[in-house]
Structure formats: C-alpha cells, structure tokens
C-alpha cells in the first residue's frame, strides 16, 4: 500500500513538473548540423509570457555574458553565428518584467559549435555522383576492351564537313563563335573541343578560320587548341595567332563586333557553339541574311528555339557535349557517351519511381521532397 502511494505521488510529481515545465516554457541550444562550425541554433517556446514582459537571451562564454537578443515573441528561433570552434557556450534566457526585475530564468547548454566532417544532407548528391561516375567509367573500360558502341547520326555534326567544304569552294572564311561565357563554363569547353576538330579540317582544306572571342582566357585556350590542330594536320605555317582575337567582354558589344564581321567578310559557314543569351537570335538572323550555312549548339533551353528557327542545323543540349565523341570516334569517348546515356536512364527510372511513390504514398513523397529541399 505504501509502495502504491509512493508510486502515485512520484508519477503525479513527474506529471506536474512536466506540466510546470510546459507552462514554464522550453529553451534549447543545439549545434547547427552539417555546417562549417561556429553556429548554434537557439529555440524557445514560452506560452506563459505576458504582454508586458520581454525575453532576453544572453550568451555565456569564458565566464562572461553578453545579451544577444531581445524579443517579445512567445516562440522563436535564432542562429548565433561566428562563434569560436571548440569553444563551450551556454545560454541563459531571462523573462524580464516592465520594472526590470527578472521573472524567470532558463538555461541551455553547454554547446560546442563544431564543424561536421561530412554534410549528411548532401549524401544523396554524393550517392548520385558515385553512381554516375561508376557508369561512365564502366563503359569507358568496356570500350577499351574492344566493345563497340554505336552512335546515332547527329545531322548537325554530319554537316560540319559539308559546311567547311562549301566555304573552301567559295573561297570565303569560316566563322566560329564559342559563346560569350568564360572558360569555366563547360559549354565553352565543349565549344572549344569542337573548334579543335573544325580547325583540323580548315587546316587540311586550307580554308580561312576566324574566331572572335568574348573572354581573354577563352582566347588563350582557343589559340592553343587551334595551333595544336594545325600542327597535327601538318600545316603549322597556315596558323597565325590573330585567327583567334578578342573583341570585348560586353555582351552586346561582342554581338555588334561579330555582326560586323559577318556583314563585311560574309563567311560561308558559321559555327555558334557554346553559351549564348539574348544575342543568339541577333547572331543567327544576321548569319541567315548573308546566306551562310549555320551550325549552332547550346545547352541554354531559352536560346534553343531561336537557333532552331534561324540556323540550318542545331545541336540541342547534350548533343553539344557529345560532339567531341562523335567527331573523334575514339572508343573511350564513345564509351563515356554510353555511360552518360545509362546515367540518364537511371535518373529517368528514379523520377518515375519517385512520382509513383508521391502519388500513392504522399508522406513518402513529402519526405523525398524534404530530402532534396534540404541539400542547400
């Protein structure tokens, strides 16, 4: 009987203390996960806070304390940033009456705002990267073992020879525009790679190549690529550095310059391969007006319709990236292309599974969306 009474009293005390805590409120301090350290997340919930009262939060570090926030909100969150890594921080929340007296005090901590070794919220990105990397390298190894991977015809790339041949017969130059972005843009790199192939052909056919560029680093890179192509074609004498020349970084200044070159020199073949923005239609229409054969390629979805409407051939999105494999036909490049296609298939399957799961099991769908939203 005594034991039963004692148990009832204990449970009641726990219940009332919990209720007291709930009515007193909660105040927590936690190290921010998956960051570079130096941040603590504070959260409070004070249902009993009166209108006349204010809450103040103090940071306690190395024996000293300083106020970091003052609020009248019943509940809220705050991120305390730029703290010392490995320092131990405590926090004190004080509810202050109008007359300045402290009605309540809640402590939280100590917390050490450390840096994580690995950002778990990005684990899914790492998993996807590993799978894509494996697929590409697997098919590269397969191609090196002698397995052949057929590639469908890409009309734009099939017509490169035709375009260069036409320009050579007409005795007119070939204009190559590698886009308006810098060398750190992968589309520009893809464009430069195709420039190498085009330069090999112009070297072989003894056609004039003109490459106006918008960025100095692209100029340097393009020069190396074209020089190497001319060297390999056995025509180092035909190469001169001013084939590749800088115009301006300014978008529409560059467009004006290229349009001027088109209008004056009237190239027979124009290649526009790289990143383009609003200037794409201006370039394509000007090229169309002089009667040149135009081959364009970009992965900018907003510019593709203009190229398709105004150019003879267009490389759409990843066809631009596939061009190097297509033109060189080297086995390991084709293997990489195959791996890229299999990665696309993998993503499509994941998309379909994710869509079905979201439709049939909304909580699962919400979780998936949450995982991808928090990658950050």
């Amino acid at each position, binding site marked *: 009987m005594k034991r039963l009474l004692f148990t009832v009293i204990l449970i009641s005390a726990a219940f009332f203390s919990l209720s007291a805590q709930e009515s007193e409120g909660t105040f927590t301090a936690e190290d921010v996960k998956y*960051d*570079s*350290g130096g941040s603590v997340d504070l959260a409070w919930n004070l249902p009993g806070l009166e209108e006349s009262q204010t809450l103040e939060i103090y940071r306690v570090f190395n024996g000293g304390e300083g106020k970091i926030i003052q609020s009248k909100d019943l509940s809220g969150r705050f991120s305390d940033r730029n703290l010392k890594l490995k320092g131990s921080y405590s926090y004190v929340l004080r509810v202050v009456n109008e007359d300045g007296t402290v009605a309540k005090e809640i402590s939280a901590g100590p917390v050490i705002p450390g*840096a*994580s070794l*690995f*950002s778990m919220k990005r684990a899914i*990105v790492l998993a996807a*990267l590993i799978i*894509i990397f494996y697929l*590409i*390298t697997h098919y590269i190894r397969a191609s090196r073992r002698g397995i052949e991977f057929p590639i469908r015809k890409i009309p734009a790339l099939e017509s490169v020879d035709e375009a260069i041949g036409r320009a050579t017969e007409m005795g007119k130059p070939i204009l190559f525009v590698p886009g308006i972005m810098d*060398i*750190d843009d*992968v589309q520009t*790199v893809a464009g*430069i790679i195709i420039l*190498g*192939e085009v330069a090999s052909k112009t070297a072989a056919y003894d056609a004039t190549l003109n490459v106006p560029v918008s*960025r*100095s*680093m692209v*100029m*340097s*890179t393009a020069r*190396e*690529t074209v*020089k*190497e192509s001319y060297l*390999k074609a056995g025509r180092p004498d035909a190469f001169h550095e*001013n084939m590749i020349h*800088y*115009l301006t*970084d300014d978008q*529409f*200044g560059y*467009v*004006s310059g290229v349009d*001027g070159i088109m209008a*004056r020199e009237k190239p027979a073949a124009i290649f526009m391969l790289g990143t383009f923005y609003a200037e794409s*239609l*201006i370039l*394509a229409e000007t090229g*169309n007006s002089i009667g040149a054969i135009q081959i364009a390629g970009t*992965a900018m*979805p907003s510019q593709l319709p203009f190229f398709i*409407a*105004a150019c003879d051939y267009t490389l*759409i999105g*990843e066809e631009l*990236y596939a061009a*190097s494999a297509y033109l060189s036909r080297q086995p390991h*490049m084709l293997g*990489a*292309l195959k*791996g*890229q296609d299999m*990665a*696309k298939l993998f*993503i499509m399957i994941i998309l379909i599974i994710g869509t079905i799961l979201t439709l049939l099991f909304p909580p699962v769908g919400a979780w998936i969306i949450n995982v991808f939203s928090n990658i950050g």
Partner: protein
Amino acid sequence: MITAFVAVIMIVAYFVPKPEVSVIRDDLQQWFLIVVTFTMVLGLLNLLFVSLHKARKGRKEDRFYNWVTIVSLLGTMAAGFLKGGINSPAFDFIFNYIYIPLSATIFSLLAFYVASASFRAFRAKSVMATILLITAFIVMMGRVPLGDWVTGWAQGTSLDFLYLPNITNWIMEVMNMAGQRAVLMGAALGLIATGIKIILGIERSYLGGE
C-alpha cells in the same frame, strides 16, 4: 593532373564543411578571379594590336571601323583616368549618352529579328510545325491585352478554359516547363559527364592535347 587535383578539392569542399577545406576552396576561387582580371589586360592589348594592324594594313572597307574601335577604346580609358575616375563627368557622359543608348539599341534589334524569324520559320510545313505555329499564336495573343479583349467574355464563366491568358499560363507553366526541365536535366548530365572526362584526363583537346 592540376585540373584533376583542383577539381577533387572543389568536390570535397562541397561535401566536407570543415573550415580548413573551405579556406582552400575560397582561395582557389579568388585565384581564378585574379587570373581572369589579369587576362583582361591580355585581351585589351590583343584588341588594340589587332585593330591597329587592320586599321593600317587591313581591307579598305574595314579600316574605318578599326579606327573607331581604337579611338573609342583609348578615349573611354582616358575619361576613366581623369579626376573623379569612373565617376568623372566625362566618363558619366560616355556611359549615359553613348554606352547605354548603344547597348539598348543592339538589344532592341531582337524585336525586328523575332518578326523576320517568325515570318520565315513559322510555316505549317509538317504536323509538328503546325502545332508549334498554333502554340506560338496562342501564347502571343495571350501575352498582350489583345487576348483579353478577344476572349474576355469567357473569363469567369463555364468556358473559362477558352480565356486566352489562362491558356497561355497553362502552356507556360505545364508544357513549356516540362520541356525546359527535360532539356535542363539532359544538359546537366552532359555537363557532369564532360566534367568527369576532363577530371579523368580523357578529354584533353581544350588544352591542345588529343
């Protein structure tokens, strides 16, 4: 090797939030910006020498434009070096009364070129071309008050689906978005694959290799 090494650091920095790694990544990004800034001098000198060469020995019809380039370049630089720098009255004048109107004018050429490209390209030569034509028609009508004037009677009625701005919004938010997403995903995958090829050294032609 250098490309692969730097690429690995950038990838590791994305997954490892430790400040020791972020510092290296930030430094590399700063180095890139510094190198790019210095290469602008290279571009400037190249432009000047090529223009000078063409102005003296180029084709007769090109010489005038090259002189315009040289005079504009040197004139703007001189204005920027005057007292007040880029806030000097001369530089402000060039910016407000030459640069801004010229830039806006070139961009405005798009309006004319869209018209000529539409006239030439939007022909019902095949089923797909006809669908493109009808869609373009609807979107163009829906994006201007004309669409509202013509189909405003349908708004709020049981025939609300015939209201052109509504159809336009649906085309943009559903059909267009689906196509944009597909192209974006394919391009993103191509980007990753190209990046992997560059990191592994398979793709070297941008460096002048095979």
